[in-house]
């Protein structure tokens, strides 16, 4: 269970997030949507403490951090529970796909190399990536890189995986493979928080949807109801505007 209370983030004098209160049940999928520059990515980065909060608190199960008492040990505690998948993949360029996936096991859990290799290979296989295990990131397509980065994120079995616009940097024809990989995770007992512009995907996969605008949560509820053109809230207007601009197609309306 993720609990966020009165969270605020400030860049200098500018408040980027304000008064964020959030509860994300264990094993659920939450989609964060909203216009560009609304603070979605900052919210996600703050959940992983890549961005430190200026106010409020974040708790994942028994690990908790308060903006007034930020300590390295507490940051590490939160990060043992959660990890992040980045828009730009951020695979370690000097390691092969396999070594990338092995790295959390070897560097954190001190798993023996042989064991780590076996586990990492099994996860790569799950994602249909065993053939490219020995390749370096630069030789992989964007879709493959993102799937390797998802494999790297889940190999150490974190409770929470945070996805920051995982398909935004991909060519359209590569998006499907990555979304399938994420959908596969949604069937497991992993709590997922996804910042995405893939509204239809979010509608199908997410339990809960959150609409962020100007650094605040302005709408929140069941994904299937909220992420539709037929609702009443701010979020429905947003989805409608995307449909009208021809940016997305939303099924079931």
């Amino acid at each position: 269970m993720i609990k966020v209370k009165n969270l605020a983030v400030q860049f200098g004098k500018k408040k980027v997030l304000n008064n964020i209160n959030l509860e994300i049940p264990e094993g659920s999928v939450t989609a964060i949507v909203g216009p560009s520059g609304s603070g979605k990515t900052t919210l996600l980065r703050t959940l992983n403490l890549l961005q430190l909060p200026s106010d409020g608190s974040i708790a994942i199960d028994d690990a908790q951090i308060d903006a007034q008492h930020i300590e390295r040990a507490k940051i590490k505690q939160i990060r043992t529970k959660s990890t992040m998948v980045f828009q730009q993949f951020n695979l370690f360029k000097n390691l092969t796909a396999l070594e990338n996936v092995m790295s959390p096991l070897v560097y954190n859990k001190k798993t023996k190399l042989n064991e780590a290799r076996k586990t990492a290979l099994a996860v790569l296989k799950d994602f249909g990536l065993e053939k490219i295990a020995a390749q370096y990131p630069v030789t992989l397509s964007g879709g493959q890189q993102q799937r390797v980065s998802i494999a790297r994120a889940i190999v150490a079995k974190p409770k929470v995986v945070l996805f920051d616009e995982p398909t935004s940097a991909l060519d359209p024809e590569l998006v499907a493979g990555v979304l399938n990989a994420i959908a596969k995770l949604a069937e497991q007992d992993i709590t997922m928080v996804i910042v995405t512009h893939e509204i239809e995907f979010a509608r199908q996969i997410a339990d809960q949807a959150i609409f962020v605008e100007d650094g605040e949560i302005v709408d929140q509820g069941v994904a299937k109801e909220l992420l539709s053109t037929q609702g009443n809230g701010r979020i429905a207007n947003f989805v409608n505007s995307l449909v009208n601009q021809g940016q997305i197609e939303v099924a079931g309306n």
Partner: protein
Amino acid sequence: MKFDWSYFLNLFPQLIPYIPLTILMAIAAMVLAVVLGAALTLVYLYALKPFQGLVKLYVSFFRGVPTLVLLFIIYYGLPEIFPVFKGVPATAAAIAGLGVKESAYLIEIFRAGITSVDQGQIEAGESLNFSYAKIFCNIVLPQAALNALPATGNTFVSLLKETSLAFTLGVTEIFADGKLLASASLRFFEVYVAVGLIYWFLIVLYSWAQRSVENILEAPYRRVENAIDKSEEPRSAVWKEEGLKQH
């Protein structure tokens, strides 16, 4: 006076025995420069402000003082103030002087190498909960080393040539031997051309070795089109066609 080919060719067997000393001085000074440079780069990047200021002063001073002056300060000057340095061999003084001087250049090169590593690499490491040390040693350093390698190689090339200044401290290396031979025969042109060719040859050899090392280290970062396996990527498939689990 004509160019004396036979004298010229006979110079090489006399000069070549001094190559090992030149190479030894260059390598020893480079090791010193790399160790000092790496340690001070870490201070410059990660230590408290006052220490960073001291490193900036170090870089400024040792880049600003001519190498010859620095060698004289170390070999002739230091023993006057600190008697413990009396009797230090000239070769050691030359190595120390060249090493310290080049370390100042390497600090700038290493700093640029480290800061040019993509911030996303560090964030990925942090997100995966790696310790700072693990991120630095396993992710940043290998990538930074590759970034810094060409410029570090250039530093070694200039260091190799600057070992010729050690003759001013009385070290008999290639250049000093050439000077002795030239004084004896008064055939300055032949001798110094021969000396120059030997330095050139050493540097060509080193440059070739460095290129080979760079080629090996760069392999992971080279995009080879043929290596991209697109067979697994659905061409135009849409995820919703693939029967996602409905929630």
